[in-house]
């Protein structure tokens, strides 16, 4: 299972534009990628996620100004904590615009599937 914490201003919009919703993806919309805390990432792993994504706005266009930076630091911390306990799960931060479903598909390993209309990356 993959869990994606998606910023409502970017990642969540991208997920909405996906032509095909991946079956093993659980998406959680958040007000800002920077709001996702280490404990949220660990709890996702506890509940069976092998991969946890934090989808944030691209640097420079973040409505919370530094959401991506905060997300990156928390993701790094979560990975260190998971490594400490021998977990093979991984946590990733990705900056993505709301009109980039092709990029998201590639991130999700769904790159061979067709992207929806309006995909600037596809």
């Amino acid at each position, binding site marked *: 299972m993959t869990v994606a914490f998606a910023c409502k201003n970017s990642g969540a919009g991208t997920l909405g534009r996906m032509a095909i919703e991946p079956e093993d993806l659980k998406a959680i919309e958040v007000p800002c990628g920077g709001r996702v805390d280490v404990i949220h990432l*660990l709890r996702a792993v506890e509940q069976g996620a092998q991969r946890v994504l934090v989808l944030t706005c691209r640097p420079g266009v973040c409505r919370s100004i530094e959401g991506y930076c905060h997300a990156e630091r928390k993701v790094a911390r979560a990975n260190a904590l998971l490594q400490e*306990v021998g*977990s093979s799960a991984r946590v990733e931060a990705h900056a993505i615009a709301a009109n980039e479903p092709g990029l998201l598909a590639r991130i999700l390993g769904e790159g061979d599937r067709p992207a929806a209309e309006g995909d600037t990356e596809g």
Partner: protein
Amino acid sequence: MIVAHRKPMEEILRSIEGIDKLALCGCNSCVAVCLSGGEREVRILASQIRIARQEAGRLIEIEELVLERSCEPEFVEKAAEVVQRTDGMLNISCGVGVGYMAEVYAPYRVIPGLNTTFYGVGLGEGVFEERCGGCGDCLLDRTGGVCPIIRCAKSILNGPCGGSQDGNCEISKDMPCAWQLIWDRLRDQGREEDFHVVEPVKDWRTATAAGPRRLAQEEIAVDRTEPA
């Protein structure tokens, strides 16, 4: 505040190896401020332990609790029910909290999850530095507020030593010489002559050299450890 930091995960996991119903207790005072043992750290550590046990194929049940203070009876007694329901407690309070809870709930097992390190100040978000040695006989009035016991690597009371170079200590170029700081402070206060006053040999009985210290504020003292 008392500053502490988490023990290595390997040590923590080894210390709770035989326990399948665990209490994980934090403290909302000093260790919460230094981001080592507050509510957030309790949640994170509990999650880490559960993941580690999942990986090891031996599940663990964890009851998480955070006391307002782990060093006073009226707060510590709030853990009584959790203690009843669990086989042992991993405690991420300072050493005072761990020791006191082990005493109150003996023979229940209370295991430290932190290494208690120093009395310090917060220099910025997440950065703490030692400032006081708790020696029991404060001499900061004579040193312009700079503690030579803690801030001098040799704890010398009549410095500086020959290792003071360019304002820094010989053990690290990033560590200011405490006696340089003391000189600078006394000079800024117009007290240069105080720098030359020789500090007598310190009586360490006020520190830890005479066993555990005890304080009773006489006008209000009620000692709960004595029989009624």
